[in-house]
């Protein structure tokens, strides 16, 4: 498929998806519309934020191997910026989806006790603050790097190395806010302290999988000359490590709640283990942990493009399933996947791909102005 053909197909997909998205609101109801909306913007947002985290991580630890690959997560992280309007728009979903916005919910002392955090003005302020912090971080981390392509100014490396640790703090706080506000507060009576870390694990994994896929695609296209299997191996190693991290955090959260058996904690799991949702948990265990873990064990699997690409797709789909399993049970029925979900997928996925292609076409595919690029290219295991 040539470039123009691909663009046409993706645009057509997005347009059809958009029609379906609008139809969802008017035909299938606004609850279905908003649940899909927040689910899909969260899916794309977590990929973008995960990539921004990868970029910052490289600067914090002064990694060399990832410098030739850095432009890919940098461009992918613009998805977080793309999703910022979607997030602000989703504030309209508060009265439809979030029970704590209704005054009668405050009869429950648990929800009333959380009113200091869960109230509309503060919620909106946090959403705006998160978007603002991401935009500033993106400008410093990514736009500066892109500008360096022309300016070749090595002072960027010094400045960004000073900012990157600050971003890690911003990231840690904002990702927790996203987890608590947009996912956890769908069921406002629920308590889980580790939930932010759980969402972080999925976010980082999604960013890694998307970056790996994009890197492998660009390598196959010959856009990343000099990038070797050794570089890709590290992405595979990260993917391997963080599937275990995700499983560890996910299971730790479940185990403690299962042991303590407190009503304000277990009801969340009870809803998500009954009926068809129980099967989804099984699928999560298999595809979010066992399959990537076992496939990525052999050394060759971490650098062989075909195998790694397949696993990256599996991990992305598993992240999708993970979010779906957390968000959709609030509709109070079994797992649904009808034409509304399909049109949202058609709208968000080709739309994001179009955006990524557009961003990649705006400059070099590698940070050519970075003085340590050569050192990065010479990296061998």
């Amino acid at each position, binding site marked *: 498929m040539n470039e123009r053909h691909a663009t046409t197909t993706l645009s057509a997909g997005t347009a059809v998806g958009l029609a379906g998205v609008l139809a969802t609101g008017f035909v299938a109801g606004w609850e279905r519309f908003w649940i899909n909306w927040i689910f899909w913007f969260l899916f794309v947002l977590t990929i973008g934020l995960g990539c921004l985290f990868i970029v910052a991580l490289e600067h914090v630890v002064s990694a060399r191997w990832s410098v030739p690959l850095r432009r890919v997560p940098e461009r992918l992280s613009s998805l977080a910026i793309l999703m910022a309007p979607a997030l602000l728009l989703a504030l309209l979903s508060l009265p439809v989806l979030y029970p704590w916005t209704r005054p009668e919910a405050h009869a429950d002392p648990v929800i009333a006790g959380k009113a200091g955090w869960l109230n509309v003005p503060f919620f909106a302020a946090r959403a705006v603050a998160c978007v603002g912090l991401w935009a500033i971080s993106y400008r410093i981390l990514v736009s500066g790097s892109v500008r360096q392509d022309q300016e070749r100014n090595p002072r960027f490396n010094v400045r960004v190395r000073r900012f990157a640790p600050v971003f890690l703090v911003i990231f840690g706080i904002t990702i927790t806010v996203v987890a608590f506000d947009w996912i956890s507060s769908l069921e406002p009576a629920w308590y889980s302290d580790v939930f932010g870390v759980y969402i972080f694990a999925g976010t980082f994994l999604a960013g890694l999988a998307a970056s790996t896929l994009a890197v492998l695609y660009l390598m196959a296209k010959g856009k990343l000359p000099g990038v070797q299997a050794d570089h890709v191996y590290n992405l595979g190693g990260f993917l391997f490590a963080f599937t275990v991290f995700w499983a560890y955090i996910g299971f730790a959260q*479940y*185990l403690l709640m299962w*042991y303590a058996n407190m009503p304000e904690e277990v009801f969340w799991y009870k809803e998500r283990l009954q009926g068809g949702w129980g099967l989804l948990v099984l699928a999560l265990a298999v595809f979010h942990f066992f399959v990537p873990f076992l496939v990525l064990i052999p050394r060759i699997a971490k650098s062989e493009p075909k195998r790694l690409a397949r696993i990256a797709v599996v991990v992305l789909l598993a992240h999708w399933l993970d979010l779906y399993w957390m968000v959709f049970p609030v509709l109070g029925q079994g797992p649904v996947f009808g034409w509304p979900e399909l049109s949202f997928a058609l709208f968000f996925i080709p739309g994001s791909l179009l955006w990524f292609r557009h961003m990649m076409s705006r400059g070099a595919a590698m940070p050519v102005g970075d003085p340590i690029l050569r050192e990065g290219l010479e990296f061998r295991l």
Partner: protein
Amino acid sequence: MSNTAFSVLGLFDSSQQLMEAIPSVKAKVSARLNAYTPYPVHGIGKALGLRKSPVGGMVFVMGLIGALSAMAFELWTAGIDYPLVTAGKPYLSWQSFVPIMFEVTVLFACFTSGLGMLFLLNRLPFFRHPMLRSKSMPFVTRDKFALAVEAEGQALDVDAAAAALRAAGAQMIEVVEQPAPLAPVSPNFLMRVFSVIGISCLVAGCLTYWGVKLFPVTIPMVHMLDQPRLDPQQENSYFGDGFGMRMPVAGTVARIPLPYAVKSQNDASALGNPLPRTESVLKQGRQAYDTVCAVCHGLLANGEPSLTSAYGAKPANLVAEKIRNYSDGMIHFVIMNGKNAMPSYASDLTQDERWAVVHYLRALQRALNAKDTDIPKESRK
């Protein structure tokens, strides 16, 4: 041909020269090649054609065995051998097995990778590696790179190997000889080793014995002994009379246990056993006897318990004639008040249990002093 050569070494100035020499030497010599370098050289394993390390496979298999054996052990202990309700969960709660399975997997995997690498693959302990006597080794640990043609236990064509190395650009050639086999261990040496081990064990044993005997037993932890509670007979300022223990309300009638009005042995002898001699009473007596009395008097009541008494006094032989002639009331009196070194067991046994023990003791006495007439007529010969 030489049967004593371990390997032929050629020294090179740089890693690049070494890497270039490998294919040319490989083409001329069929024996296995090995390299010794002051630091890891990228890609040298592939160039030398080294075998893939079996450590990965070993670790995987042992990790799996670790997980499965932990699971089997937990299933057996928690589900079959000693089912115990913990925190109101079912006996076979797989959730609680997972952390232990995880830890045992890691333990097995770590031990396998560490010990397997050292002992199985590198054959440690191995004190006389031929390379330790090579004159080139000091150079290799500094700034030279050595390529070795190894004999692998077969005859090595030293001249051909040396010629191939020289042709590839080696500056110094060294033939490393197989070391002479170790002299067999002398009986004298063995005697000394075993004597030292024997004497050490003896000294350690004696020290432990005397240490335990001579030093008074100290209580290592007093947590539960040292409680903010009122002990019997303790003073208490809360009540006006200063006593911690209270008198029952006036007119209180004791129901269980019934009052025991016996004051002296003579009174006691007059008391009869209030319980009937039925199978269930004997069973109750046996259980109480085995729990409380058998520790000192022995399961057969013959004063020979499995535990030798820790303090000098020898427990009474309860089946001896003297005790056989005691009345039931007298035996009960001894249980209530103790005798010689024996303390009172009134608080360890209920009234019914005490009388049941008396019945059971009578049965033991009879059994150990049986007459011919006790055997049923049909069985006598």
